[in-house]
């Protein structure tokens, strides 16, 4: 069970209080109508399945109900950083970006 730091509450809490919401930084296209079906399909369904660093969206569902991002190593389950919505990760690797 992960121990997750909620940047809004400023505390480490148990994983049970949080919901994972999948890959972070999936931005809703500003003009959906200009997207082709393929592009819309990419936005809707296609996600990374990273071995290593992964940027994830989480919500403190049974806490402050706020969303935030986590950079997590999917091999070791280490949480490398926690950062706010709108911010970019500072922990990245070539492998995670490729």
């Amino acid at each position, binding site marked *: 069970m992960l121990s997750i730091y909620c940047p809004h509450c400023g505390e480490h809490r148990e994983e049970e209080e949080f919901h994972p919401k999948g890959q972070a930084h999936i931005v809703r296209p500003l003009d959906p109508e200009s997207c082709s079906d393929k592009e819309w399909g990419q936005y809707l369904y296609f996600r990374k399945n990273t071995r290593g660093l992964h940027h994830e969206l989480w919500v403190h569902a049974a806490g402050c109900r706020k969303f935030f991002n986590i950079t997590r190593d999917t091999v070791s389950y280490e*949480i490398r950083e926690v950062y706010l919505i709108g911010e970019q990760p500072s922990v990245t690797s070539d492998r995670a970006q490729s």
Partner: protein
Amino acid sequence: MAQINRINNSGRIDPTQPLNFTYNGKSYQGFKGDTLASALLANGVDVVGRSFKYSRPRGILAAGAEEPNAILQVGATEATQVPNVRATQQELFNGLVCQSVNGWPNVETDLMSLVGKAGGKMMPPGFYYKTFMYPQSLWPTYENVIRKAAGLGRSPKVGDPDTYDKVNQHCDLLIVGAGPAGLAAAQAAARSGARVIIADEQNEFGGSLLSSNEMIDGQPADSWVKQVAEELEAQPEVMLLPRSTVNGYHDHNFLTIHQRCTDHLADRAPSGQVRQRMHRVRAKWVILATGAHERPLVFGNNDVPGCMLASAVSTYIHRYSVVPGRRLVLMTTNDHGYKTAIDWHAAGREVVAIVDTRQKPKGYRVDQARELGITVISGSAVIEAKGTKRVTAAIVSGINEAGDKLTGSTQELSADTIASSGGWSPAVHLSCHTGSRPVWNDAVAGFVPGATKQKQLLAGGINGVYSLDKVLGSGLEAGLQAVSNLGFAAPAVELPQVEPATEGRSMALYHIPHSKPTSQAPKQFVDYQTDVTAAGIEVACREGFESIEHVKRYTAMGFGTDQGKTGNINGMAITAKALNKTIPETGTTIFRPNYTPITFGAIAGRDCGELFDPKRYTAMHKWHLENGARFEDVGQWKRPWYYPKAGETMQLALDRECTATRDSVGILDASTLGKIDIQGPDAREFLNRVYSNAWAKLAVGKCRYGLMCGEDGMVFDDGVTSCLADNHFLMTTTSGGAARVLEWLELYHQTEWPELEVFFNTVTDHWSTMTISGPNSRKLLSKLTDIDLSNENFAYMDWQEAKVAGAPARIFRISFTGELSYEINVQANYGLYVWEKLFEAGAEFNLTPYGTETMHVLRAEKGFIIAGQDTDGSVTPEDLGMNWCIARKKPFSFIGKRGMAREDCQRENRKQLVGLRTKQPEVVLEEGAQAVFDPNAGIPMPMVGHVTSSYYSANLGHSIAMAVIKGGLGRTGESVYFPQADGGVIEAEICSPVFLDPKGERQNV
């Protein structure tokens, strides 16, 4: 029966407190301080089980968690049965009842052993699968017979009467194991003021020191243990957990400790006490001081009762005052093993010989043994044990320096006990739980924990450090390291002094060769519990299994309840040899939680029965109970389903509720409806984006139905939202969808549109909601309120603030039945009061309470959908024929708009929502029934949709159904068919889903 193997020495048992117990129906006596295993050995019980595959008699091998054979069924009553208890870990109590878990008709005379004997050579790995493969259809029959013949303990057939607890703990440092290393670490950490938990699986602290005669700081080891334990006990920040196995090491230093609070007292927990407790610990740092397990040596017939681990024999002698035999042959690869022969000798029984596999053993223990006059046969090994239910002799032969060939002649030594020591395997189990792979260490001749991401330190035997002075030093060092990592000041501690011992070099030997090839030699067991032999591993390697993980799965090595604690390393060494590789090349399998088996009760704790899942009740629940409601679970809510009167069937109750509502007035407790309060200057814009229809012009005082879609264009929730003030809305959701919808709104607000100023809060529980519905609902409500309810003043889809029965209320004139209908919301505290007032006032109108089932029927008569019943995540608003609910011209591309414009969503022939009328009006279709266009089509029939809702409508006098049918919106009047399991076919005609009052005149009066 006398305790023939009990001796008088100063062990840790109390001979003044005899305890009676029953094993396989016979009464025995042991003493307080005994384990079940030591008591059985004291009584001279040799056979404690039959082996899994070959049904060979088995005796006690070990003295701790690693025991593979003495797996017993414990329990005096059906409810307190515990399967697969390691006798070596079960403390004896008065009245304990246990039996061996396999062997038929009994463990002494097992008929299956004949099969094992006759078929032994013909039962290679994979035997059952290879033999019983054909015909496949008979496998269930084979399996039934095989399972009866094999298998371990059984589960109780009735509920567990005991109580279990879960406790969450947070500490600076968790120390696993209270042997010399753990205690030295704990002493240092405790003195620093850190918050420490120290847990040990045994009933008292001390680990190996409890069966040792070594001296620490000039006093016997157990005195030192007592002194340290007392010091720890006195520290307010230190928690001592004996009888507590750290069973799992999970991510981010989360560990689970299984504490057995009363298992040593009685068959079930004394009244008012918790039987077991699960500590869920989040530790800043962890010290693993789990020690090591001794490896037995692999030789012919090494499973005959009387073959034991050398260290276990010493433990029985020292700690339990039991010598488990008369004449000992000890085989060892190391100096440490000599201790057992010396202990045996000191207990006054005969040591036939020490058989040392090394050519020239040297060291103080070797000298000590020789001085005592014990025969030491060096450069030799026990290649085979004789005997069936007890060892009668050991066959000894010379062995070369590499340990792979026999030399010289053999001799037979008469003995009843063969103890063996093949060195030690660090207990790396916990370190593996988080994915760290152990690494081979040649100097240790064992696997030690590998690199880890956890905040974990190691102390003592787990690192391959075995001599007491070094173990204590390593414990102290780890303790100080933890203190420093935690940021505490270094405490004043001194290294406990012990006489340093010089031991000769051990020999890395696992598998003793036999004069015959392994495949023809008497069975040489590697994993006792799963009956894996050296020959079996060689067969697996010959058959092409090269990965150790595959060998493990093919042979079942390490699959027992003991997880191969004694056998795994030997098995890996044999695999390596068979593959011509080194052990590090072959690698090791890893271990998973739990370290030892654990009862489900401890995992569940109090989260069972009534407390398994929270139940949610509305404010009127008491009334529903008093009025005979049957309940339905909706999410966690208990909702009235229907209210049968005496003698009424469900259908009769529904018919009565349905007609009463349409003829006069009915009432529904709708409090469970999700309610989300939305405020802020951008609330309206936000609604525009998340609903498919338009919200820009909804005036204060008005309500509107909305559909919510996902980005894929599929409907996922619906409900009515009302404009309370220009920047204030009340959204309702389905009863089960409230939490999901709120999280969905927050997701879009926080991640996509943070610039919108809008706030959401759940107010579901703040309000009690009662819906009165039917032509007399206005008359009823007018008796209890002061406002003008006329259609002109209070129109359909309006809401108003008013007092109802004196309570402040919001009244919404919305309808889910198609009738004139008012949804009255009052503060939950007033809920029951107003509800009762409505019944007082409603008596003259035959006000009828109805539940969720009647609600479903009434809405289906009107063709209103229920999101999640008539939709399943693959249905667009268009598929529902709800084009009127899509505002394509809204300036912002609302959620779902682009999705529903995808080519696939625009395709002809999608499954679309239609109504169905069965040709025989009284026949009610099954919900979920599959539709076909041609009932005579060949199998597999092309399926064209399914029934989503289906009821009998008393108001209409026939059944009604809703279904999704391919291209259904263009097929009105056509028939679809529903083939039934009994071969019959139900025919139904496609119609509009609005069965009643298509113009909506009844609700608009």
